[in-house]
């Protein structure tokens, strides 16, 4: 450690961002179609249409290069979009995994042909994306993946199983981590493939989690043939590509979640105000507010680092760790405050969201893994 701490950069909007903010706000006021249907399938369809409409209005891919259909603005413009979408009835972008993770990863690692092929469909949500990293025997220990992709001429033949794949049934493409050299050392011999989910040999099986909802799937690959041209970042270079993709799972991704949590926090407050209890709960409201706002500050720090390109390795683990804490604390507090009614009736989805919140300290690297990363990368502990 150095002698002194250093105050890190924070996200600073530019003049154009404020103009954009007004533009988006006015457009949403005119075009917000109202809350999506509650049924899962209909909701997914409605959210796909919503992203397409936002794209047609010029608000998707704001930070992407113009040659790939973006607006060529700085990353701060994406933060403005996320913040303004928060005031709509449909705050989440259905294809955010593509927009926030796989699109930027393809910018960094993709060939020109891959950029031309894959990026446009991400923007209008006509081609949705999922991610195939976790396996039954490779969760936190990601480098132990067993799904293989063996070369056969100009193709790779994939066999194996992935698990916890979000929205696999909706996706056209899968960013898939596979082992291309079974004899290589663990972190070598891996590759990332961009796999067409309509390929013969792929079977998607719903994998109900604690809520018995179809968010996740198991995906089975039986002799699935993938063109070598769909390898991202080169054969046997998958570990670096996967780590780059995971780094993009912070920043805008966490900002979107922070905004979503803030909306739910406001809903909790509305309920307490309606019951005449808010004044009695100022301390708990204050703690939740402060923790949520600190998460926003941390995301702004990460976005600033992503813009300048000097984000310390491992620093986004702090974002994930605090996100998990705030997420679980908010819903636990809400459930505790609303008590028997929330438990008995499901009113407000507070019990649902408390149950769901347990996933946040597990997915995308458990909190324990985040602590390992912080200890190794930020503190230099071996």
């Amino acid at each position, binding site marked *: 450690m150095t002698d002194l701490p250093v105050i890190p950069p924070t996200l600073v909007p530019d*003049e154009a961002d404020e103009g954009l903010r007004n533009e988006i706000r006015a457009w949403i006021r005119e075009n917000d179609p109202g809350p999506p249907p509650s049924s899962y399938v209909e909701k997914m369809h409605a959210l796909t249409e919503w992203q397409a409409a936002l794209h047609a209005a010029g608000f998707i891919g704001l930070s992407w290069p113009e040659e790939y259909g973006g607006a060529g603005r700085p990353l701060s413009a994406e933060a403005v979009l996320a913040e303004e979408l928060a005031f709509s009835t449909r705050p989440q972008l259905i294809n955010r995994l593509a927009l926030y993770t796989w699109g930027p990863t393809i910018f960094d690692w993709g060939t020109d042909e891959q950029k031309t092929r894959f990026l446009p469909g991400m923007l209008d949500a006509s081609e949705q994306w999922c991610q195939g990293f976790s396996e039954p025997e490779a969760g936190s220990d990601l480098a132990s993946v067993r799904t293989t992709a063996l070369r056969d001429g100009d193709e790779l033949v994939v066999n194996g199983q992935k698990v916890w794949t979000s929205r696999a049934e909706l996706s056209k493409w899968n960013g898939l981590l596979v082992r291309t050299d079974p004899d290589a050392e663990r972190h070598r011999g891996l590759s990332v493939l961009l796999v067409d989910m309509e390929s013969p040999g792929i079977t998607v099986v719903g994998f109900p989690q604690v809520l018995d909802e179809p968010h996740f799937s198991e995906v089975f690959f039986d002799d699935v043939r993938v063109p070598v041209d769909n390898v991202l970042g080169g054969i046997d270079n998958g570990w670096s590509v996967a780590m780059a993709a995971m780094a993009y799972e912070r920043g805008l991704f966490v900002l979107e979640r922070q905004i979503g949590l803030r909306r739910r926090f406001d809903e909790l*407050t509305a309920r307490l105000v309606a019951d005449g209890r808010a004044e009695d709960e*100022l301390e*708990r409201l*204050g703690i939740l507010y402060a923790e949520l*706002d600190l998460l926003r500050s941390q995301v702004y720090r990460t976005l600033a680092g992503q813009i300048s390109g000097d984000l310390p390795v491992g620093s986004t683990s*702090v974002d994930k760790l605090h996100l998990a804490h705030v997420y679980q604390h908010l819903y636990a507090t809400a459930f505790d405050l609303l008590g028997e009614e929330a438990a008995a009736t499901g009113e407000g989805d507070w019990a649902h969201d408390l149950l769901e919140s347990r996933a946040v300290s597990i997915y995308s690297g458990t909190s324990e893994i985040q602590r*390992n990363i912080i200890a190794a990368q930020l503190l230099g502990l071996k």
Partner: protein
Amino acid sequence: MNAVERAELVQGLDDVLAGTLDIPVLLEAARAGGAPLGIRRAMTELGWASIALPETEGGLGLEAADLVAMSLATGRRLLPTFLRDEALVLAPLLLKSGTPEAGVKLTRLLEGTAGGGGAAVPFPGDPGTPDPTDAWYMPLAPEAETAYVLGPDRSLLIDLSAPGVHVDRLSGTDLSSGQSRVRVTDSAAISTIEATGREYLLWFMCVLADCVGSAYGALAMAVPFATEREQFGRPIARFQAVSHRLADMRAALDLSLSGLSRLIHLAETDSSETAAVLHGLCFTVPSLTREICESAIQVHGGTGFTWEYGLHLFYRRILQSQAALGGPVETARRAGRRYLDDYQSVGPGSAPVDNGGPS
């Protein structure tokens, strides 16, 4: 001043402080219940008391961000808080007062022949003016002749040598800064200074930065200790129970710094979000930095609980600062009050977004 120049400035201050305030010196002062010997002279030679004054008045013309960054060093090296506040708050207030008496006191402060100290009413003060009939707890220099009480709209200067001013010297938790209770029974001892919002906000930001600096000091002791101390045949940092605790400490530090960074930007750009964000940080930063110190003591085992090791000095400093800001319960309630007021005046889902604009 750009980031590199600011870092050099802060490093220069830290070098001076590190050369003067090592743990043995601080422990000796703490046991004696006073500031380390020679620290005022060292700071006077540095021109410390003038740093927040404009260049036209012999100062450095520093911006708020510079002063907040310097407070990282005051916390890191445990400069007595009255010395910190004399430079950051008292000197600008005396200059702003503009009276001949204040001018004399400012000269003596800059010469190092007199000192002071002060406190702030809770943020945001309600009413905006401190109540002169209150009693205030504040760190006061042994040679203090002026105290201040900061308010968001206007502040008070108290002539400590005037009739009707009662000063009770207390030990405090931060032993080398000390604490005093100041009561005024004759209003003639008090003068009012208008438009002190800048100093008021700056004081809160500097106290928060000071907390972060102190927590960093504790973490900077804990990490090498854990890598060197062996138990069961290996360094204790190799036990996940210890390394994860250290990781949580580092995460808490980074979160505090990120909050401070955003607050500085909002304050610099007069964002309407400044007050709400400050409210949140007045709860989170002292809480997180306090936990860092508590974990540092735990990581050190019995060593961390000894007087001689000095880890308690950082802990004491943050406990005192947390109390000065209002304490965890009260700051949480104030954050809740502020949030609820904003929520009820603007409505759900329509809270204003004001990221401060371009700086």
